[in-house]
């Protein structure tokens, strides 16, 4: 299909200072867990987006000095010439695809814990970080200011040597330049504090010096947060940001506009639970109205109509994407080729971000199992090798995320026939009903994307509403059988706190309920007082609390953990979800574990109370979000009761399982598991993942 003419505007070149970008698709700086020290993973990851049509591709935040060391989180670094070499590989590979590269020069000030370098970060005022607990900075005197500005200049020169076309003087997310601009961080009384001119001075001088050093042939980008949602204390659009734009507009080649500070940066990297796409457009348009330079910004854009409208309406010049580029590095190419139903749309779950927040692990994506695997496993999101055992027929039992992904990849790898058989009438497994939890509607994209792809594959047949038993599977006629039957929530309170069941917990009783009983089976939640027992700590317990409170129940959310839903801190969903809990009057009880459930009440004890004092909670209903268990009965029947020999006699040469029915994990893990098996279905031992390339020093001689 040719490109729709209404999207032509997205493919018009645009000048950014001394550089020209070939189209309007820009991969904003975002982390991937690779930094400068895993240069091959870094380069292959970024180059994939350039191959997919992005006109410019950025590093993640890129530290300019050991004083800005974010360990345990992983940033890029341009500290020395070896970093120049390592990031130079990324520049070379991105340039080969005709895209520009950008380095986001970063100095964290009080937010940088410097756990590897043991250096002392410097900042405008000595107040500990609101983001990184127990982290202090040295308050800068004038010599410090000049020293740090020289670090920016030296890093900019290294960036240019590495081959970067654009260098940032990065302030957003409340890093050093923005700290100077913001009264919340800047309590100075000298010429660097107080009035807007004074608060802007550090950033303005730094931009001037970087521009002077590299600006003749390198574009200067400034990333600014235009509202920190903190009232007077935070940066404000009208008071601070628009005057700042007018002050330095001449020096800047492109503005990168967003909102929020770092401690609530979910206002910028918005979970779909709270915000639709394009939520930052009003702030971006406000800057565009006063700047003469191109303005770019994110908004979790996946819809080309919205992108083109934003440019036509004068809200943005360049469409920056972060999470949508992770979910689909080929977003621009698919728009260009009119293949809109092939776009793998970001669902806004933020598990990508969770890995940065955790500190250390590589990036993952619910939608794109190949994200982060470009180099280390050699996976390409759009290219699939023909399977060497493609003359086999495959039966996949269970069409949840793992089964659907596995069927799709096996289809694309050219297996002779793939039958995906699902017991329910609708595809999706648990993802049939999870998107019906409050705010999670966009998560349905996991199922919808795969449904469309499966429908296009001639060698894949999807058979729903059909429950196969072990005999039916054995006699089905497949050489390869893959069980993907998912998981269920424990019905007896079994949990990871006590490693035991909860006395009295039994989902066969009318007043004990599991999540799928409520969401999928329509089991009524009796009475008005509900206690949710959440030993899981992610979205399920807290989402059910919200749903039941919206239905008018009086909800108590109890967990043995120190926080409710702690994983939502990593996905940036926690602050707004806590606001919701508060607004809905949901009582949270932490560090408590039920000791028994009776009709009408739940009895719990504090997990650190050595005397075990009991506390009673009135409860007409108890919802058990204690742990999941694999639905492995069918697999066990096939392997243990039917047996591999009997299966072989029926022509079944291999039996595997994928997803939650191996172990219940993140949706992203289930998708990965299905993808991984399909990618390696023709290896010597498909059940065991092939080793991946590890970037590390290897001792080559005796020390």
């Amino acid at each position, binding site marked *: 299909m040719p490109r729709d003419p209404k999207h032509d505007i997205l493919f018009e070149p645009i000048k950014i200072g001394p550089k020209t970008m070939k189209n309007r698709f820009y991969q904003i700086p975002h982390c991937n867990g690779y930094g400068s020290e895993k240069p091959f993973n870094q380069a292959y990851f970024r180059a994939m987006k350039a191959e997919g049509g992005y006109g410019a591709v950025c590093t993640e935040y890129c530290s300019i000095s050991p004083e800005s060391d974010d360990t345990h989180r992983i940033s890029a670094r341009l500290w020395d010439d070896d970093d120049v070499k390592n990031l130079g590989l990324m520049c070379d590979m991105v340039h080969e695809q005709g895209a520009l590269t950008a380095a986001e020069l970063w100095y964290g000030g009080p937010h940088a814990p410097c756990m590897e370098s043991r250096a002392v970060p410097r900042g405008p005022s000595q107040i500990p970080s609101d983001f990184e607990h127990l982290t202090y900075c040295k308050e800068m005197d004038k010599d410090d200011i000049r020293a740090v500005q020289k670090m920016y200049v030296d890093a900019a020169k290294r960036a240019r040597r590495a081959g970067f076309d654009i260098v940032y003087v990065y302030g957003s997310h409340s890093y050093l330049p923005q700290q100077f601009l913001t009264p919340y961080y800047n309590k100075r009384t000298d010429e660097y504090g107080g009035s807007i001119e004074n608060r802007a001075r550090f950033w303005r001088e730094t931009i001037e010096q970087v521009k002077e050093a590299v600006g003749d042939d390198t574009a200067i980008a400034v990333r600014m947060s235009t509202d920190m949602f903190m009232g007077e204390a935070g940066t404000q659009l009208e008071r601070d940001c628009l005057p700042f734009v007018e002050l330095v507009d001449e020096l800047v080649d492109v503005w990168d506009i967003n909102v929020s500070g770092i401690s609530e940066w979910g206002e910028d990297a918005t979970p779909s639970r709270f915000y639709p796409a394009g939520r930052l457009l009003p702030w971006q348009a406000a800057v565009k109205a006063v700047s003469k330079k191109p303005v770019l910004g994110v908004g979790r854009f996946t819809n080309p109509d919205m992108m083109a409208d934003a440019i036509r309406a004068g809200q943005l010049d360049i469409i920056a994407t972060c999470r949508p580029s992770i979910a689909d590095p080929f977003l621009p190419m698919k728009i260009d080729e009119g293949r809109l139903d092939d776009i793998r749309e970001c669902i806004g779950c933020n598990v990508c971000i969770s890995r940065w927040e955790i500190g250390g692990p590589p990036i993952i994506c619910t939608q794109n199992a190949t994200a982060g695997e470009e180099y280390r496993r050699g996976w390409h999101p759009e290219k699939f090798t023909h399977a060497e055992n493609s003359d086999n*027929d495959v039966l996949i039992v269970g069409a949840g995320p793992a089964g659907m992904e596995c069927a799709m990849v096996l289809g694309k790898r050219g297996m002779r026939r793939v*039958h995906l058989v699902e017991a329910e009438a609708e595809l999706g497994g648990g993802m049939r009903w999870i998107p019906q939890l409050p705010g999670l509607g966009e998560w349905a994209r996991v199922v919808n994307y795969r449904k469309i792809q499966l429908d296009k594959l001639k060698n894949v047949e999807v058979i729903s509403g059909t429950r196969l038993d072990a005999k039916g599977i054995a006699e089905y*006629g497949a050489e390869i059988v893959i069980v993907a039957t998912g998981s269920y929530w424990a019905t007896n309170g079994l949990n990871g706190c006590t490693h035991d069941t909860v006395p009295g917990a039994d989902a066969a009783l009318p007043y004990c309920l599991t999540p799928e009983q409520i969401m999928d089976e329509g089991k009524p939640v009796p009475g008005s007082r509900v206690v949710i027992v959440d030993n899981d700590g992610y979205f399920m317990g807290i989402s059910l609390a919200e749903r039941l409170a919206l239905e008018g129940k009086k909800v108590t959310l109890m967990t043995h953990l120190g926080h409710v839903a702690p994983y939502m801190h990593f996905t940036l969903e926690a602050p707004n979800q806590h606001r919701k809990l508060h607004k809905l009057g949901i009582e949270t009880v932490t560090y408590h574990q039920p000791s028994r459930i009776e009709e009408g009440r739940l009895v719990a004890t504090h997990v650190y109370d050595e005397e075990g004092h009991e506390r009673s909670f009135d409860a007409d209903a108890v919802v058990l979000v204690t742990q999941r268990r694999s639905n492995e009965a069918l697999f066990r029947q096939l392997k243990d009761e039917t047996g591999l020999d009997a299966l072989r006699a029926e022509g079944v040469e291999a039996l595997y399982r994928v997803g939650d029915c191996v172990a219940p994990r993140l949706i992203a893990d289930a998708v990965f598991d299905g993808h991984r098996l399909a990618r390696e279905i023709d290896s010597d031992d498909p059940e065991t993942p092939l080793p991946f390339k590890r970037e590390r020093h290897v001792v080559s001689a005796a020390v």
Partner: protein
Amino acid sequence: MKVVVCVKQVAALGDEVEFTADGRDVDPDFLEHALNEWDAYSTEAALRIREALGSGEVVAVTVGGGKTEAVLRRCLAMGADRGVRIESPAADPFAIARALASVVERERPELVLCGVQSSDSVQAATGAALAGLLDLPCVAVVTKVDVGGDGRGSAHRELEGGLLDVVDFDLPAVLTIQTGINEPRYATLRAIKQAEQQEIEVLSCPAGEPAYSVRRMFVPVRGEGAEMLSGSPAQIAARIAEIVNERLA
């Protein structure tokens, strides 16, 4: 009871389309092929009749070149007993009905099932034409069928406005089957493999006089007067409301 099911391999357009050099057909490179949706239901109906009576034979018949055998193999994988392909250049419903009639006359079934229509040419004529040629009773657009061993059958027909026409008929008869009459069964991989090995009888039949011929096939030129609405869903909805109000005024 012997049931003949007349099935067709239909063509579906992909995302793009080009025509043959003579401009009278779609370039086959741009077509995808499958068993006509209605024929999956009529095959299932035939299989259920055989199963309900505990004996009988289901014979699937199609008209076309060698590649159309794929749809017969689908019917065999579902459970049909035999497949017959009539090699014929016939293209219009009447020529196809003549080809099918030759096989029905030879097979002498108690029941002939056709789909109401095919999804590609949408003529809804083959079944009725076949009944006419064979001088058999024809019940069209059937949503329920019962046949016993007494040489009689009854069927429900779907009428407009939710009305139901209940028809009794004598066997042999031709029925055209509507989608939704049943839930067509899937074929296991084993059944598909077995169907691949099954012999398909090939007969030939002259096309005879075509009832009509295609002169030209083309994509209609887009007319004037269409207003494309763009903007946010709210803006589009507001514009639609405006237009409706203008027209009502």
